C-alpha cells in the first residue's frame, strides 16, 4: 500500500447552519476520507481545519469543494501535508488564564511559558464579559518539558499585573 496523501483543508466564512454537512458531503462524494479536524465558530465566522485523505492532486481536491464553498461564501485553502494519524502527544499540564482583556496578554503569557519549557498542544481562547469590560479567557493544554515548577514560576511573574492564571498537572489515567 502506498503512503496515503493527506491534505489540510481550511475553510472560513460567515457562520450559517449546514456548513459542515454540505462541505463534508462534497468531500465524501469525491472519495475523500476525513482525519482529525477542528471546527468552531469564532466571532460570527465558522472555521474548519480538516485533515483530508485524497488520492488526487491538490487542485483536483480544491475543485471538489469549490462549488460548495463558493455557494456558502467560504474561503478555501488547501495544503499538502506530511502528517499522519495516530501521532497524538499526551498533555501533562493544563493552564487557564483570565483577566481584563488588553493587547499583549497572550504574547506575554505564552512567551514566558515557552521560555519555561511549555510545548502547547491545544490552545483555545475567548472574550467574555461585555463590550465595556471584556474578559479574556484562555485554556492551554501542553507538555511541561522542563517540569511543572518552571511553568509555575513563569506564571507567578506574568500574573502580577492583574492576570489570573491557574496551572494543574494532568496525570492521564488509563483504565
Amino acid at each position: 500500500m502506498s503512503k496515503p496523501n493527506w491534505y489540510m483543508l481550511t475553510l472560513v466564512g460567515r457562520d450559517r447552519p449546514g456548513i459542515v454537512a454540505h462541505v463534508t458531503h462534497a468531500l465524501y462524494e469525491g472519495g475523500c476520507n476525513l482525519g482529525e479536524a477542528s471546527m468552531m465558530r469564532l466571532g460570527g465566522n465558522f472555521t474548519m481545519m480538516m485533515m483530508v485523505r485524497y488520492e488526487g492532486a491538490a487542485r483536483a481536491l480544491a475543485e471538489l469543494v469549490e462549488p460548495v464553498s463558493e455557494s456558502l461564501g467560504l474561503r478555501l485553502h488547501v495544503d499538502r501535508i506530511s502528517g499522519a494519524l495516530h501521532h497524538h502527544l499526551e498533555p501533562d499540564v493544563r493552564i487557564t488564564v483570565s483577566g481584563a482583556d488588553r493587547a499583549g496578554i497572550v504574547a506575554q503569557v505564552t512567551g514566558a511559558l515557552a521560555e519555561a519549557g511549555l510545548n502547547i498542544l491545544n490552545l483555545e481562547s475567548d472574550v467574555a464579559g461585555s463590550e465595556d469590560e471584556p474578559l479574556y479567557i484562555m485554556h492551554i493544554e501542553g507538555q511541561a518539558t522542563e517540569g511543572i515548577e518552571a511553568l509555575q514560576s513563569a506564571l507567578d511573574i506574568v500574573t502580577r499585573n492583574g492576570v489570573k492564571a491557574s496551572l494543574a498537572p494532568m496525570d492521564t489515567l488509563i483504565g
Partner: protein
Amino acid sequence: MAILDILTWPDPRLKETAQPVTTFDETLHAFIKDLEETMRAGPGAVGIAATQVGSLQRVIIIDASSRKNVPHHGRQVLINPEITHWEGYAVGREGCLSVPDYTGNVIRAERITVEALDEAGATHTWRMEGFEARLAQHEIDHLDGLLFLDRLVSRRHDLYRRKRYD
C-alpha cells in the same frame, strides 16, 4: 495464566450491564489472575474491569501505586463494588484500554466511599480520593456499560462548568 483479549469500542458488549458475582470459587480466582495479567500487559494501564475482556461480572482491579504523591490502597480487587458516597468534583484526563489512542477530560467526584467484596467474598468499605477515586469511578462505569467517552467535557468550556458547580 493468560492475557485476555481486550474489547475495543464500538464492540456492543462494552455497553452491557455486568451481573453481581455470587460464587467465590477457583474459577473466579483464576479469572481474576488473568484479568490482572491483562491489565499489567496493557500499556500504562492502572485499572481494568471484567467487562473489558467480555466477561459480564461485576469485578474490577485497580492499582494506583505507580503514581507518586497520590494517596492509594495499592492493588485492589473490588467485587460487586457500590459507590455509597460522593464528594466534590474535579476535572481529570482519562484514556481507556478499550478506546486506544484517545484521551479526554472527564469530571469525577473527588472523594468517594466504595463498598465492595474481596476475592474471598468478605465486605469492605474503602474511602478513596483523587486519582484512585477517579480510577474506581472509571472502572465501575464499565460494569454499567459506560465509557469515559459518555462523560467527556468540552475543553473549551471547562471554566464555565467550574463556575456552575462551585
